[in-house]
């Protein structure tokens, strides 16, 4: 058991493990003795900072950003004499940005702290002086004996001492750890079973010697020493923090690892942080700005080296001159001027860009995505949740979606839907697929199936008056019915949970199929309500006569387990009257092989039914039984026991023994379970594919099931050319049977290569012709393994990129991740993975965006995801509305920042030419420092939040608009170049219009303006223009736009009124004194203020008009065609987009939902737990023994029986 290590790839160590001593000794129930060891307390802290580390650590984090570091350097530089500006010029924006970021960090950390406190302060019963006392978790210490009640969480890693259940057994749920919701069993050592009551527990004095804390979830080595008797401990006795107790009144345990030393805490890994593609492109833009900055500085510096000359005597260069202006050291002049200009032009780097983007994204995700009622799932009370705010705009550029099937496309809700008993088909429901067929034929489908059946519950969607309420007694084949129901009620590995009444009981099953079957039996009147290791108790109704119920107990003698090779499961049971029966359920193929002779008619009819079920997308199982003679059974049982206890090849030998008895079966009938699709999945998929998104289904299911679901989801249809690469061909099977592993590998690789090549040759002829069919690829896990090898990878990629849908079935979690990164890295497309289970984690982490389905199953996928939504269909809103908007908004924000800083800095640059390249600043220090953080900061954030090109309902109505994001139409070189051109043009207008027009007196009193008057004039124009430019790029203008834009301009005026109106005695240049009043007393001011912004924006306006009218974007066309629409407030519940399908659309919609014309596959499907763990081990993760497996324990018991 401990042989399995967790691979280092999946686990990052949280902390350095304490190395010595190698052993930890814990004295149970003896605080003083443990005190000497100074074990860590049980309080945890997940905060990043504490009061003391906040500042240094927080600042360090901030300065890891290039822009911040740059500004720090510039700030330092501006404290030197080479700087033309006062240090505040760069310090103020930097400190404001840092302050804001730090406050944000502190706020987030505070929330984490609050969270920790809630956990640390939860209460648990601790043994103290003969009684249980409630104590806070954080006060718990190693060695304490505690009691945990049902559904409670374990506060630390515990050693299980005793349980209220018999045999010291307790059930735990590990969903928080590994995402598995099935219950697991832990069993205390027999020696400690009795310490249940506080009185007894007080007497317990034991000593635990165990390993030091480590992060391996599935291993534990240690000994318990009680009264000098040493007993080995295994993971079976360990209850890990994070798990919860189920099905057990309470347990008593002793604390062995606390707080951060618990295994779950030592496993807490940092989710790899993802950066959006836009942000990575932004880095390039910043880099471009840096190089622009550098060339500007270089140009200016060279200019200054040439300019400087003693002939300008008024510069006082004749005597001793500092290096920067020393004409005899021209080279030094160039270098130092370089530094000067670097500080002067620093505004070209938009320092507040990152913090603005972060704020925008944070609000987008926390207010818009998390609170969108369109993505709120009322049934489960689950809103969407953005777990990271980094990737909002990435949602607007997704090109490939990788989806898990179970739980994502389907509900992971198996509903007993139809059945065939003794050659008669029962069940009146229609699947969505069948409805699609019916609709095509023009039959009106009545949705009346819900009301009639009052008994209907989740998992049982069956109605047929011939069977319900005991009516089956009147059926001609009522004996078959009885066997059928008994088979359902007995042949399974389900655990009942909760009260033993039909209403309250819950079934805990490893596979949802099984739960559905047991549930069906319950609804048919065969209520399985209790299981002990050897017995199954069934409350049977209507058996003797109508309305009578009786409790029957069946002794379970053997369980022959399900696995993927056997594809069947059998139970040997003894009736109270001694009748020995073997009940078997399994795939039609394996059952039919093992049927006894006779009954050919029944078998034939049932097979027809199976095919019908299969084509309707239902999952089928065949049920059969066999009466056993006692002597036959006994002789077989001996073989079984030897096989069971054999040490080598146990599984194989067990299979062989099973074959001996699983024959001459008598077919009872077949079950048909509907793997229910999530609500709105087909529609959503269709919308997404209209948006140009390609959807790949990666599933662990078998090829038939996968194809069936793909049909149901609109992913495949009959018009498509399907390429199927499957390992289930005769040729491969033949080689496999020979059993030579290397030969199999070689052969399969050849086979896969051959097929890939053939399909690649075929493909062009389809997609080259305009009306040709779309392509689809179906490939299974085994073939994928070979296709993913480096030599074939390219072929696979080329082929699959040409397909509009791809279905990968029977893939392992690792392969899911491999396929995802194949597209991500190989094709450099933006990928999104969506899944719900622990097996999707790797895929979720591999993709650009990981989406977890929050709701039923464990939290593992959600914890690893970037966004969590409750339903697959919410993807439509998330991508087409939020993603699209975020992308467009962020592009606007980035471009606007780029523009406003460039335009502003360039005015400064042009001025440099007129100052003998001396690096004299044009603007006042405060103007320059507040430009980015005050005068132009808020409106752009408002745009980042509110801008909407078209309404959300139109976004969904025209999914094609999404393609603009995929093609990155709003942030590419062309756009940057256009903005740059206008920034240059505007800066020229700002500088030259203002300076040229002020060359003569601008006052009727004949007085002249000085430098600071001109620069204030220019700056006013810049602020006004830049803010107005923002309004011009808005697609929707709310009151907040006006407030922020108007506010920014007003703030500038208020600032300058105050700033130039006061003069303190303290260190301040009084250059600016009264400047604005002087300016505003002239008519020139107003004339210029009208002229310059209009002149500057004229070019932009013309561009916008021409662009929109002659080279419009798609969204602009939609805007125009809908501009006369009344501003319909699209209510969150409005489904208008779906209702507005034209008849043609509706028809194609319906047609595409049809299944393959004739599918000969009979729809066998069964989620076998063995199958799951097969992949788990392949993935490298060790899965603990199947603790749900009560049946195994049952069979263990039976072993001892014959003695």
């Amino acid at each position, binding site marked *: 058991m401990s042989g399995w290590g967790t691979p280092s790839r999946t686990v990052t160590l949280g902390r350095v493990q304490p190395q010595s001593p190698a052993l930890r000794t814990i004295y149970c129930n003896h605080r003083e003795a443990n005190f000497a060891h100074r074990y860590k307390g049980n309080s945890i802290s997940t905060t990043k900072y504490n009061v003391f580390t906040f500042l240094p650590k927080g600042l360090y984090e901030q300065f890891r950003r290039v822009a911040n570091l740059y500004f720090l350097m510039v700030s330092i530089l501006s404290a030197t004499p080479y700087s033309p500006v006062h240090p505040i010029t760069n310090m103020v924006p930097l400190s404001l940005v840092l302050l804001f970021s730090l406050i944000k960090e502190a706020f987030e950390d505070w929330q984490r702290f609050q969270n920790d406190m809630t956990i640390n302060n939860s209460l648990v019963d601790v043994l103290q002086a003969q009684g249980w006392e409630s104590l806070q978790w954080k006060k718990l210490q190693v060695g304490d004996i505690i009691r945990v009640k049902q559904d409670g969480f374990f506060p630390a890693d515990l050693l299980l001492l005793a349980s209220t259940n018999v045999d010291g057994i307790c059930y735990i749920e590990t969903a928080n750890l590994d995402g598995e919701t099935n219950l697991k069993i832990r069993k205390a050592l027999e020696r400690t079973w009795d310490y249940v009551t506080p009185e007894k527990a007080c007497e317990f004095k034991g000593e635990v010697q165990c390993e030091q804390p480590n992060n391996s979830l599935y291993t534990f080595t240690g000994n318990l020493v009680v009264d000098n008797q040493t007993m080995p401990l295994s993971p079976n006795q360990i209850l890990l923090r994070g798990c919860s107790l189920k099905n057990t009144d309470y347990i008593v345990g002793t604390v062995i690892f606390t707080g951060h030393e618990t295994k779950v805490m030592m496993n807490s890994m940092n989710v790899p942080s993802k950066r959006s593609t836009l942000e990575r492109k932004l880095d390039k833009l910043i880099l471009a700005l840096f190089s622009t900055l550098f060339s500007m500085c270089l140009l200016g510096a060279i200019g200054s080296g040439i300019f400087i000359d003693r002939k300008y005597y*008024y510069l006082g260069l004749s005597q001793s001159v500092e290096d920067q202006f020393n004409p005899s050291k021209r080279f030094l002049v160039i270098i130092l001027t370089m530094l000067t200009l670097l500080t002067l032009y620093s505004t070209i780097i938009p320092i507040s860009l990152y913090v603005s983007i972060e704020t925008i994204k944070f609000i987008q995700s926390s207010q818009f995505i998390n609170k969108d009622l369109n993505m709120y799932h009322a049934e489960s009370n689950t809103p969407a949740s953005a777990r990271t705010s980094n990737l909002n705009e990435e949602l607007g550029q997704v090109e490939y979606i990788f989806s898990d099937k179970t739980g994502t496309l389907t509900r992971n809700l198996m509903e007993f839907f139809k059945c065939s008993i003794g050659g008669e088909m029962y069940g009146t429901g229609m699947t969505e697929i069948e409805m699609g067929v019916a609709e095509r034929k023009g039959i009106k489908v009545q949705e009346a199936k819900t009301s009639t059946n009052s008994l209907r519950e989740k998992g049982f969607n069956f109605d047929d008056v011939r069977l319900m309420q005991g009516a089956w007694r009147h059926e001609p084949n009522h004996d078959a019915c009885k066997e059928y129901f008994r088979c359902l009620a007995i042949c399974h590995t389900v655990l009942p949970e909760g009260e033993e009444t039909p209403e309250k009981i819950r079934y805990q099953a490893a596979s949802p199929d099984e739960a559905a079957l047991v549930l069906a039996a319950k609804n048919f009147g065969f209520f399985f309500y209790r299981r002990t290791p050897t017995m199954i108790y069934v409350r049977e109704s209507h058996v003797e006569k109508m309305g009578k119920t009786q409790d029957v107990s069946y002794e379970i003698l053997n369980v022959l387990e399900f696995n993927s090779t056997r594809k069947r499961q059998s139970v040997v049971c003894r009736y109270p009257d001694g009748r020995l029966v073997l009940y078997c359920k399994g795939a039609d193929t394996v059952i039919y092989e093992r049927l006894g002779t006779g009954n050919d008619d029944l078998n034939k009819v049932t097979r027809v039914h199976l095919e019908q079920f299969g084509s309707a997308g239902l999952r089928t199982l065949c049920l059969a039984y066999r009466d056993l003679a006692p002597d036959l059974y006994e002789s077989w049982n001996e073989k079984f026991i030897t096989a069971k206890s054999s040490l080598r090849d146990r599984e194989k030998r067990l299979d062989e023994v099973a074959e001996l008895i699983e024959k001459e079966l008598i077919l009872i009938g077949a079950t048909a379970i509907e793997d229910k699709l999530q609500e709105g999945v087909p529609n959503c998929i269709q919308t997404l594919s209209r948006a140009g998104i390609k959807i790949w289904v990666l599933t662990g299911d078998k090829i038939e099931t996968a194809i069936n679901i793909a049909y149901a989801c609109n992913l495949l249809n009959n018009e498509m050319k399907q390429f199927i690469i499957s390992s289930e061909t005769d040729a491969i099977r033949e080689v496999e049977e020979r059993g030579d592993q290397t030969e199999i590998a070689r052969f399969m690789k050849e086979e896969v290569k051959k097929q890939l090549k053939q399909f690649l040759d075929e493909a062009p002829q389809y997609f080259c012709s305009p009306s040709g069919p779309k392509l689809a690829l179906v490939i299974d896990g085994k073939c994928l393994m070979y296709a993913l090898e480096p030599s074939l990878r390219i072929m696979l990629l080329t082929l699959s990129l040409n397909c509009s849908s791809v279905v990968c079935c029977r893939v392992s979690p690792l392969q899911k991740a491999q396929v995802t990164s194949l597209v991500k890295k190989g094709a450099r497309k933006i990928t999104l993975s969506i899944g719900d289970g622990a097996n999707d984690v790797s895929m979720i982490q591999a993709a650009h965006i990981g989406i977890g389905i929050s709701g039923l199953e464990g939290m593992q996928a959600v914890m690893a995801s970037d966004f969590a939504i409750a339903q697959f269909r919410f993807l439509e809103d998330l991508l087409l509305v939020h993603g699209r908007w975020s992308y467009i908004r962020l592009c606007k924000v980035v471009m606007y920042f780029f523009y406003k800083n460039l335009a502003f800095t360039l005015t400064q640059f042009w001025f440099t030419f007129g100052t003998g390249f001396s690096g004299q600043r044009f603007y006042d220090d405060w103007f320059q420092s507040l430009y980015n953080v005050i005068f132009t900061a808020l409106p752009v954030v408002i745009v980042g939040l*509110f801008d909407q090109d078209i309404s959300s309902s139109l976004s969904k109505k025209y999914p094609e608009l999404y393609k603009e994001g995929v093609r990155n139409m709003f942030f590419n070189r062309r756009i940057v170049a256009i903005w740059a051109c206008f920034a240059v043009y505007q800066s020229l207008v700002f500088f030259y219009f203002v300076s040229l027009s002020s060359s003569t007196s601008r006052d009727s009193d004949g007085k002249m303006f000085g430098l600071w008057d*001109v620069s204030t004039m220019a700056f006013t124009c810049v602020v006004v223009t830049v803010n107005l430019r923002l309004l011009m790029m808005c697609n929707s*203008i709310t009151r907040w736009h006006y407030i922020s834009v108007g506010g920014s301009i007003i703030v500038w005026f208020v600032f300058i009124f105050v700033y130039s109106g006061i003069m303190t005695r303290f260190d301040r240049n009084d250059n600016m004194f009264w400047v604005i009043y002087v300016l505003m007393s002239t*008519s020139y001011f107003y004339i210029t203020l009208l002229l310059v912004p209009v002149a500057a924006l004229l070019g932009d306006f013309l561009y916008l*008009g021409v662009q929109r009218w002659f080279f419009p974007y798609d969204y602009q066309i939609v805007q125009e065609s809908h501009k006369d629409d009344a501003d319909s407030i699209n209510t969150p519940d409005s489904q208008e987009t779906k209702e507005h399908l034209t008849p043609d659309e509706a028809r194609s919609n319906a047609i595409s939902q049809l299944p393959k014309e004739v599918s000969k596959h009979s729809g066998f499907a069964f989620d076998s737990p063995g199958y799951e763990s097969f992949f788990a081990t392949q993935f490298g993760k060790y899965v603990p023994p199947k603790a749900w497996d009560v049946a195994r324990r049952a069979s263990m018991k039976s072993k001892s029986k014959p003695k």
Partner: protein
Amino acid sequence: MTDTDRGTQRDRNSAFYLFTQQNLPACKPVLTPEWVFMTFLFIGFIFIPVGLVTLRASHSVVEIVERYDIGCVPEPFRINKVSYIQDDSIPKNCSLSFKVPKYMKAPIYIYYQLDNYYQNHRRYVKSRSDKQLLHGQNQHGISSCQPVEVNNDRPIIPCGLIAWSLFNDTFTFIRNRAELKVNRKNIAWKSDREHKFGKNVYPFNFQNGTLIGGGKLNPRIPLSDQEDLIVWMRTSALPSFRKLYGRIEKDLDVDDVVVVHLMNNYNTYSFGGKKKLVLSTTSWLGGKNDFLGLAYVFIGSSSVTIAVVFTLLHLLSHRH
């Protein structure tokens, strides 16, 4: 989202609800060709009249510009103007005359214009001490005045390169053999006089060094009354600039001949700067400067042109 009852009607109309659901009332302007056309036309209709009014104001100004830096150097020194200007023994007086082209209504402003003079050079701009100018000698913050802060270990008031290089050409105007009185008061901005230059600060130790940069100051007049200095110290934005010298408060008639006697003291010869004398009247918009008017007219007329072209293009193209 904790409240599952999806909100009452009141909640639904609250600003926060509309905000989170991104349904805030907004106007969604669509830049249709009509809008573009109308906007351009509107700009045209506003700008052309404003431009014409502005141009008219500019044209109503009568301006006489006379360059004198070369003319005032006697022929023999034209080869080496620098030695001429630096030689104190050579008399610097010079005279020029011009005819008034148009009737000039008082007040007539007298400017001197310097070209290629980098008053906005960084070394130059920062070489002053605003504290000293306002508070005088007892202030020590004169380190910014480098390299002209002390002479003979005593601080210079006013210190710094700007003050040191004070312009010192002087002009007297004679019309019909009668001197035209030049009012040299109130030529600086009021705010400068009252708040930046101290009433009790007197020039001290000024231009006493070995190198004389420019004009000298009367040590008995406080800085706040040294308006030449105040004007000079409001540094210009561009390397070509005018500064107010004084006012003639008499009208000049057409064809009046004005003779200017000037002292050509200031050295612009070392760096090839030009010196010009400017006489100008003003309008409501200040001195003669066609730039604003032309810009207005240009933008207005191009707007109209664009509007027309755009309409034509729109009519010719067949969108929709």
